[in-house]
């Protein structure tokens, strides 16, 4: 059921242009990112190309980034996680609720409890996928529906507006030096997951499972447990993203928080999979994908482009960016 991006066709190539093709395909999306930055800077130098807007873009993409990075871990193993929308909503809402009602006095404790809960829910997804043998797509879709229902039920559709302590709001509104807190979280998540996937035994095993689960299993890797881990991480990142949204806005919304980020996080991860290491999901790629989406959104908004143009232009830029990367890879195969 996995998505097979490689197309097939006559292969021709000359060793002379090989290196060039390689470079272009690896750096295609990065080049698109640079091109977007250049164009927006030219068109709106005083607004776009400022250090303030730089942090602003980072701040805007940080929530998408955190969610997309978690999703990347699941996608490395070929697992689509559609529950992350519901998970983000639940995470943000529960943290606000528990803190507003005083269930937990300390924001840190509340955040940790929510993250632990998310890990458990994600691991449940993993159990059904690995031991039940159901495709992750449908499991996470169903669980996402359950989460949506639960948070509506728990909240009675009421947004939590008051009683959220400042210690929690700082997660979304604070700054460390010039760096907004959401960006700090994004950086932490990116570095941790980068090290996790690239430098640890667990990450190595995940790539092996994603590449060929049967080989991994026959090499003695407990393949099934990794589905729990991957979907757990994905869920925890989604919940963290949801909490940062809540802290940023200062309200606990029972609806619609995560949905905003669902498709964009897939888009970012898939853009990432055509960056630097074509065909592989990886953290650096997703970061590039997130930045590309962030720059496009920010640039188009700053230019005051009409909404419908924003949709259309965004689609076109995405298409061009990924096309630039993939077209040449394909020719090389």
């Amino acid at each position, binding site marked *: 059921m996995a998505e097979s991006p490689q197309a097939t*066709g*006559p*292969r*021709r*190539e*000359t*060793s002379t242009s*090989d290196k060039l093709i*390689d470079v272009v395909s690896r750096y295609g999306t990065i080049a698109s990112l640079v091109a977007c930055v250049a164009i927006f800077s030219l068109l709106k130098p005083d607004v776009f190309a400022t250090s303030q807007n730089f942090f602003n873009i980072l701040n805007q993409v940080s929530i998408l980034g955190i969610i997309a990075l978690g999703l990347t871990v699941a996608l490395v193993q070929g697992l689509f996680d559609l529950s992350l929308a519901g998970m983000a909503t639940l995470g943000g809402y529960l943290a606000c609720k528990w803190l507003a009602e005083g269930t937990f006095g300390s924001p840190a404790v509340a955040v940790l409890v929510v993250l632990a809960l998310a890990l458990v829910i994600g691991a449940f997804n993993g159990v059904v996928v690995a031991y039940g043998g159901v495709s992750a797509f449908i499991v996470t879709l169903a669980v996402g529906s359950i989460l949506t229902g639960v948070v509506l039920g728990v909240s009675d559709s009421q947004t939590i507006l008051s009683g959220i302590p400042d210690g929690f709001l700082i997660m979304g509104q604070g700054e460390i030096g010039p760096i907004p807190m959401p960006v700090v979280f994004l950086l932490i998540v990116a570095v941790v997951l980068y*090290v996790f996937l690239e*430098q*640890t*035994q*667990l990450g*190595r*095993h995940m*790539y*092996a499972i994603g*590449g*060929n689960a*049967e*080989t*991994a*299993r*026959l*090499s*003695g*890797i*407990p393949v099934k447990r990794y589905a729990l881990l991957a979907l757990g991480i994905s869920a925890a990142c989604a919940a963290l993203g949801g909490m940062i949204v809540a802290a940023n806005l200062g309200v606990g919304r029972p609806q619609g928080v995560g949905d905003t980020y669902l498709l964009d996080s897939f888009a970012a991860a898939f853009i990432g999979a055509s960056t630097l290491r074509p*065909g*592989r999901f990886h953290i650096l790629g997703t970061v590039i994908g997130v930045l590309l989406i962030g720059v496009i959104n920010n640039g188009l908004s700053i230019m005051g482009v009409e909404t419908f143009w924003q949709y259309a232009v965004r689609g076109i830029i995405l298409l061009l960016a990924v096309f630039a990367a993939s077209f040449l890879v394909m020719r*090389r195969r």
Partner: protein
Amino acid sequence: MTTTQNEPGRESAARPGPLLRVREAVKDYPGTRALDHMDFSLEAGEVHALLGENGAGKSTLIKALAGAIALTSGTVEIDGSKVEVRNPQQAQALGISVVHQHGNLVPELSVTENVLMVEGLGRRIGVLVDWRSAHRRTRALLDRVGLPDLDPHREVSSLGAHEQAMVAVAKALASNARVIILDEPTTSLQPAEVDTLFSQMRRLAEEGIGFVFVTHRLNEVFKVCDRITVMRDGGLVGTWQAAELDHDSLVDQLVGAEKAIAHEAFTATAPPREVVLEARGLRGDVLRGVDLQARAGEVVGIASLPGEGAGEVVESLYGMRRVHGEVLVEGTPRRIRNPQQAVAAGMALVPRDRLAQGLVSDLSIRENATLASTKSYRTDPVLRLMRRGRERSEVAEVMAQLSLKSGGLEKEVRTLSGGNAQKVVIGRWLLRRAKVYLLDSPTAAVDVHTKGEIYGLARSLADNGAAVVFTSTELEEFVRVCDRVLVLHDGAVVGELAGDDITVNSIMRLSFGRKSV
């Protein structure tokens, strides 16, 4: 390079040139020249062996002829006139039909749909598929490849490897091809099936079809081929009439005189030591109470007809099948319900299906090699950071020991040729220092030189104290490497052979269920 060009013997019809000719074929991959000014020609009505070591470029040449890849430079001629083979459709239009080394069949589809994939299923009332005639045509083709009882409705994924191989041949026969190219079709076939295939090839050759036949089993070459072309490093070594060469001189040509190895025996020189692996009363879907012992220092062969127990014993020992029975490693009973527990117990599997079960093609050689031993390269059980430096040096050491040919240990495994890929799988278990090696047809699709290396490896593993369990579809291999052979028939051990009693004939007789040797 000495090239003995021989004029083709038979079927010298009034044609301006040979049926198929390739001149100056060059194929470059990034960092590799897979074909280097290769010349080849095929006459109508001949069976022409295309031989060479792993990675010599045989499959590359075949893929170019099939339109699966495009040559960097070089020409292809049919009947003396230059043709373009830019895609598989063009190859088919030119009458070239190919059984590729891998991926000939779509496992999800029925036998009929696979066999008639090139030809088309045929229609009735406009657009609808005429299933009845499609199945009828398929049945006729299956009949020809010796599978008269195979139900053409069956899904290919439900067939055994040997049945799949013959279905692939049937698919090649389905088209009205003038050139049929078979890239290692016999790898997973039993001797009787090989004979069926050969008689079909001879029959069709008599009708004027030209065959290109790739194999690493040299006895097959002399059984069926008229001419022999040997490749090395992407180029031509020479072409001979089969009668001009014998086994030894062919091996010289294949591997180069300096590397040639004698008919070395790989059997034990010292008596076996303590029991390392013991299985008692294995019972399952196929097995009906199999006992087995393997001692340090011995290579134990397990032989049977397909589906009658040999493969099942290996899979059961490795936890891939649920069976009843007891397994002891170094005298300790081990609960082995899954491969993870098998690995933990010190077992190693070199699986039969290298691509699907042995390798992660998109990962590097290094990452594939350390897949089973990541634990020994991690810093600690909490952070589990990988120590790449140590990993790299140990992999390099083991791969040097196995004389792996590659473009570097960071290259993706998918770029390796068959034999070299097999060495990566074996290297994985050397790095893990396993105690029990289950070698399930480890020499399938491996060239004659590397085969020798693998036999030697099996021996040195045993000599160093491991128990080695060995299976093969080539019965001569049991004779060359095994100290003891258990022969299974219908899920039970029907005989045990040792030393000089191990012969192709005795194994064959026992496996057909004849008790007495």
